[in-house]
């Protein structure tokens, strides 16, 4: 496999040093990395998870509204960043891979590389109850 776009490589390396939880998807929406800080919210180490296709992580994390309704793709910060190429912020609930539900604040940002969109990143943190 050839290497990923350089922008993703550099972001992954930066994310690995940050204490801010980060979740990175490529241009196809495949989850390619989340950092150690995100592991507490995701409920599993990334090395144990590895990559997940868009449908897989959507099904696994089941992002939903505070009232329990599933978050529409257009309102999902990460998918909005990827598909609408705009930043979006939202409070939502995810189900961790350990089965626990967690209320989080999430901001999605598109990753525009030198040659076009290379993916998106979500920065998130626990929401105040």
């Amino acid at each position, binding site marked *: 496999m*050839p290497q990923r776009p350089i*922008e993703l490589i550099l972001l992954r390396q930066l994310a690995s040093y940050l204490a801010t939880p980060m979740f990175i998807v490529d241009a196809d929406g495949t989850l390619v990395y989340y950092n150690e800080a995100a592991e507490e919210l995701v409920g599993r180490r990334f090395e144990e998870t590895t990559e997940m296709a868009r449908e897989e992580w959507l099904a696994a994390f089941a992002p939903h509204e505070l009232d329990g309704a599933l978050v529409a793709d257009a309102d999902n910060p990460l998918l909005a960043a990827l598909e609408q190429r705009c930043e979006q912020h939202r409070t939502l609930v995810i189900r961790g891979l350990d089965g626990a539900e967690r209320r989080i604040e999430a901001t999605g940002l598109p990753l525009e590389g*030198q040659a076009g969109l290379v993916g998106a990143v979500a920065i998130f943190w626990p929401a105040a109850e």
Partner: protein
Amino acid sequence: MKVRLWGTRGSLAAAGPETIRYGGNTACVEVRGSDDHLIVLDAGSGIRRLGATVGDDVRRIDILLSHLHMDHIQGLGFFAPLFRSASEIHIWGPPSGRRSLRDRLTRYLSPPLFPVPLRDLPSDLTLHEAPTDAPFAVGAIGVSAALVIHPGPTLGYRLSAGDRTLAYLPDHEPALGSRHFPEPHEWLSGFGLAVGADLLIHDAQYTDAEYAERVGWGHSSLAQAVAFASAAGVRRLLTFHHDPGHDDASLERSLASASAVSHMDLIGGAEGLALDLAR
């Protein structure tokens, strides 16, 4: 594919009796395919001497710039074919997404840094932002370009002719920020360009001790270059972009030390060295 080195030094030209063996000119490599078409990798100060060997009968020349730092473009204004009206020169360089290649090159090729503006050069000059999404052909050679880790938009190139491949990554810091260098292939900058190459010309500017003091400057240590070449499974590694402060004796010592602990076929990049990849 034939390769000749006209400049192997990095950052700044370093002429003097202490650099006679490896040379003092900055990055420039001549490549010729089966059709003998002239491809020039980078336009450091070494391109001046290359230009003096190009006859008036040569019409088209392609110059592939890895990036626009001074040590890779400073020889452009001294490349004789640029001043011939019969020459057709194509310069390929990294895309920036913000400013055209012409705008960026003009910062150097215009007063007060250079007396002759780019537009006044008599040759038929065409500038291309090298595509990074698909290979392109230059004469009989197929070229792939990809962005690599180095400050500012910087390309590495992979040149293929028949079953022979040359990879050129003169300024490259694949170990930047890496916790486990070399990373798995898909997370290793430059891997797709270098994988399985017959010859890899790669940045090896620093010693390990120097690298520790210069992380983020965009270059590799010799040990990192060897590790990268091993990960990419290249056949031969040619060290390049020698630090201007490294004299011939120190380069010899570093290469001998690296050869002693590596199975890599290691070649010290010396100005004037010619290689035929068919052999």
